[in-house]
Every structure is written in structure tokens, then in C-alpha cells.
């Protein structure tokens, strides 16, 4: 079991309120991702759940039990830190065994569980090394190993991939997802990277300045962002926004359209502009277009390689069904 409920939780540091009253339920077995720009309070929120920080007011319940004033050690949660936080003076084996030692398990039980975790994580050959002798990806796996042996009711991940290089990050992302598939344990994952959020989450919680902007599945957020912030934050490249007459045509204060929802056409089209930068990825081409009279820069994603270059005039045709409309307060008009 691993249901986590936050009820009217607030957090202040001194007189600064970093998290205004917040309600959130994380269901058992769910992979929940907190995503938002840096300083949005997502890590603080995770640390509140972990018990590493006190909440200022409100309640935290884990599996229906009030855990508000329970010390971290007794909450039955495991955490993987951004820096991995491995014990540098212990071998990999001892690192993974540490939570079990603290739980006063017998030596045979400890050995058994450590071996099992190590084989799952491909660490068997490294058990007697120190963390300092491991690569970033291996350290990450040790940190995960240390978390899984506890058999926690939920895993907490605090930007676990941000210290890895790009290639490794993709690999680890898959490993963590697979781990979730296998264990079916609740996972709460903090990241500033919306790609991680989109690819891994069952449920995404978008945060800004301590406030939950929207909660939903990745595709819900992609298809029906509740406001301009979520619309701009989810999706890559970023959604294009336009105000003024073009928005008025759709009877909205602001309209947004994703780069992949604008078609490049040979001629005609509703919009046109001059290609500034063309990024050729082979599979796709990203155009950054100026002089459209709509926005400073318009980003368009074309499938395949489209051979337009800097300075060329480009004709565009937006897919009207995929235009998002927002009112003056930035909220979605449905």
C-alpha cells in the first residue's frame, strides 16, 4: 500500500510562504511526477512528504494514517537523491544493506535481499567496490538498490537523473519505468524536465510558485492544458502563443498552437513568414520563423526533412482543431 494524501498543506520559511494551501492525493501504485520550473517548490513538496522538512500547517496522511509528525525513518518511504547521497565510506554491499541493518534484520536476511537487489540492478560484480569507484549510472543504481531493499510503501525521487549525461539519462529513465512496472509501488518523482514527466508519469502534477497548476495524465495535459502556463510548459518545442487580432478571430484573448500542429504548405496557407533558423534533425525539421505578424517567433515542426533555409519565405497552415483558446486571465476556454 502506498497512498499519500496532502491536506491543506502549507510551508513557510520564516515569513516567506513557499507553498500556499495545497491538496493532493497520490494513489497507491501510481507513478506521479512533480514538474515545474526551478524554484517552483516541487523539491520542497517532496521533502515535506519525506518528512525531511516540517509542514507549517495541514496534514499528511500515508495509507490513511496521519504521518504529519512522524520522523522520516518511520514513514516507510524510500528516497533517491539528486546527488545519490551514497555513503562514501561503505562498499556498495554495505550501502544497500544499510537500511536493512537499521531495521535490525538478521545477517542472512540482509545478505539475501542485497544479493537479490544487486542482481536485479546488474550490480553483482560491483558489490565490493566503493561508490567513488563507480560511474554515474552505477551510482544511481546503487541508490535505487538502497531504496528498493526497504520495500517501502512509496519511492521518492528527487531529480535523480539530472547529474547524468544525456545518453545515460534515457537509459535510466527506461530502467526506472520498468522498475515501476515490476514493483507496482507508488513512486513520486520530481523533475524540471517535462520530457521525463511525459514519458514516465501516470499522473503529472504541474507546479508553479508552490501552486498546483494542473493535475492529470500526460496526454490530458498535452491535449487540454488548463491554462497558459501548463500549455507552455508541457510539450517540446514550446507552444506558440498569439494575442491580438489573430486571437480575436477565435474569440479568445490568447490562442496557442503547438509547433507540430502547424503544417508547412507549398503556397497559400493562412500564415506566412521568413525562416530564421532551420534545425534539421532528419526525422523532423524545426523552423523558427520571423515576420509573421503574429508573434515574435513562430516555431513549426515539420515531419521529415523539408529543404527550406534561412531567409526563405514559408507558407503555413494551422490545424484549426488543435488551437487552444485562453481568456484574459490565462485560463482555458473550452
Amino acid at each position: 500500500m502506498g497512498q499519500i494524501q496532502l491536506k491543506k498543506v502549507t510551508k513557510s520559511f520564516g515569513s516567506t510562504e513557499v507553498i500556499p494551501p495545497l491538496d493532493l492525493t497520490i494513489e497507491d501504485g501510481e507513478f506521479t511526477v512533480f514538474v515545474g520550473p526551478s524554484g517552483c517548490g516541487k523539491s520542497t513538496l517532496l521533502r515535506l512528504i519525506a518528512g525531511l522538512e516540517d509542514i507549517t500547517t495541514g496534514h499528511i496522511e500515508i495509507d490513511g494514517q496521519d504521518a504529519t509528525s512522524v520522523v522520516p525513518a518511520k514513514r516507510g518511504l524510500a528516497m533517491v537523491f539528486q546527488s545519490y547521497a551514497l555513503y562514501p565510506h561503505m562498499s556498495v554491499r554495505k550501502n544497500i544493506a544499510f537500511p536493512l541493518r537499521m531495521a535490525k534484520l538478521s545477517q542472512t536476511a540482509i545478505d539475501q535481499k542485497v544479493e537479490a537487489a544487486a542482481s536485479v540492478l546488474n550490480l553483482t560484480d560491483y558489490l565490493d567496490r566503493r561508490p567513488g569507484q563507480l560511474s554515474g549510472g552505477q551510482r544511481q543504481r546503487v541508490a535505487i538498490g538502497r531504496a528498493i531493499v526497504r520495500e517501502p510503501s512509496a519511492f521518492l525521487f528527487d531529480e535523480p537523473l539530472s547529474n547524468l549525461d544525456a545518453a545515460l539519462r534515457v537509459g535510466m529513465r527506461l530502467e526506472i519505468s520498468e522498475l515501476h512496472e515490476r514493483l507496482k509501488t507508488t513512486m513520486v518523482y520530481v523533475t524540471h524536465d517535462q520530457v521525463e514527466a511525459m514519458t514516465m508519469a501516470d499522473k503529472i502534477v504541474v507546479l508553479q510558485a508552490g501552486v498546483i497548476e494542473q493535475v492529470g495524465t500526460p496526454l490530458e495535459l498535452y491535449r487540454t492544458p488548463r491554462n497558459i502556463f501548463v500549455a507552455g510548459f508541457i510539450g517540446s518545442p514550446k507552444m506558440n502563443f498569439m494575442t491580438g487580432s489573430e486571437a480575436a478571430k477565435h474569440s479568445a484573448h490568447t490562442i496557442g498552437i503547438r509547433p507540430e500542429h502547424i503544417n508547412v504548405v507549398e503556397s497559400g496557407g493562412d500564415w506566412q513568414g521568413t525562416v530564421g533558423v532551420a534545425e534539421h534533425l532528419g526525422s523532423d525539421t524545426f523552423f523558427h520563423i520571423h515576420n509573421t505578424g503574429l508573434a515574435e517567433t513562430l516555431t513549426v515542426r515539420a515531419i521529415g526533412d523539408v529543404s527550406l533555409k534561412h531567409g526563405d519565405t514559408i507558407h503555413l497552415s494551422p490545424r484549426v482543431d488543435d488551437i487552444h483558446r485562453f481568456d484574459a486571465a490565462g485560463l482555458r476556454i473550452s
Partner: protein
Amino acid sequence: MARSVTTQRKALTTVAAWTIALIIFFPIYWTILTSFKTEAQAINDPPLFFAFDWTLENYSVVQERSDYMKFLWNSVIIAGGSTVLGILIAIPAAWSMAFVPSQRTKDILLWMLSTKMLPAVGVLYPISLIFVKFDLLDTRGGLLVVIMLINLPIIVWMLYTYFREIPGEILEASRMDGATLKEELLYVLTPMAIPGIASTLLLNFILAWNEAFWTLNLTAANAAPLTAFIASYSSPEGLFFAKLSAASTMAIAPILILGWFSQKQLVRGLTFGAVK
């Protein structure tokens, strides 16, 4: 970045550096050398640098006549005891200040430092009175506590500067892993801080060993450590150069050896982390 230097210049620097180093070291060298001479050779004119009969007689005489071992033992107990006690009190305090800092942490640290700067002579009489009152005069225990207290600020400071370099996340990880505060300190912080704790121990042991105000003023025959033992040689017996040298050599040798190991930490410890 190392710069290439001409061999000639390097040779010149070498000569200069060695000359100065030998001059600075000379009094110690001379003391050690003299301790192996007979009394007559020790005051020979001209001074003897090599050609003399090496003898260990002075060492056995010093031991026989003044029970050197007793003073040595006192020094070991007082310096070692005050250091261990100080570390035990300082580790939790330094943990608090390094990992759970509050607005007052800085003030507390600076205040601790300021107690170190209290001139001892200003409080000599009150301390003597307290010692008399509680029957602590000339006891190792009393002196041990006083020396622990005068060095406690340095211990706290040194540990604090070492602890601050340990990432807090690792301690948090241990908390998530189910460690109690005691286990966190015992199994995670202390082993990680071993190098820092060791150098703190070392430097503090040296400072305690060499402390010469309170040892001279609060001890007599029973609890006197080597500092006070040596001071007794300033009486006419001090004219026996060879024996004075032997006694001095025995008093400084252990600490010279320890000191050479601790030279790197010395800077940090004595400047309260202001120079690293």
C-alpha cells in the same frame, strides 16, 4: 601551474632554503645532540659537533632522578584525556551547527571563539579558588577539564569546518533509511569525517601537550605534566646541559613527530578555517 625554472635558480633557492631551515632548526638539533654527550663535553669549548662519545647516560639519569615516566604519563593522560573528552562534547555540537544551522549559529560560533581569547591571567585567581574549594589542585582530573575547556572552541570550530564539507543529503539519506540520530552520527557522520576528526584530535593533542600556563599554575608534584617538569630545570640544576637536553628531548620528541603529521591541518585549525 608549475613553471619551468632554470636549474641554476633552483640550486640557488635550494641552498638558501636549506640554510635558513637549518638555522631555524638548530636549537632543536643542538638539544638532541647535546643530550647524547657527557656533561663535560656538553660545555666543551669549542662546541663539539661530531667527535664525542655518544652516551645514553643522561636519559637514564633523568629518569632515575626525577621519575620522568610519571610526568610523561601525566602529560599523556591530561593531553589525551582532554582531547578525547573535548571531541566527544564537540561532535554533537558541531553536527548541530553544520547541519541544522539557525540564525544564531554564527553568533554561537563566534562567541565560542571569544571565550578562547579570554586572557588566562585574568581569571587565574578565581580558577585557583575553585580548584582549592573542590580539592582539584594538583590533580590530573582538574587540569584535564580546564585544558579541555580552553581548547573546546578550537575543537568545535575545526570539526564544524570539516562537517560543513559533508553533503547534508547523505545524512538525510540515512534518516530516510531508518537511522536514528545516534545511528546517523555513529555510522554515517563519524566514519565520513574520520580524516577531519583525526586531524582535530592531533592538533588538539599538541596544543594540550604544550599548554604551559595552567599546568604551571595548577599543578605541583603529583599531577605535573612535562611542561611543568621541564620548568623545574630552570633551577640551578639547569646548568647540567646534557641532562637538560635529555629531558627536553624526551618532552618534545613525541609531539614533534605528531606535529609533522598534522602540519596541513595546523593552518586550518589555528585560523578557525579562515585560511585553508
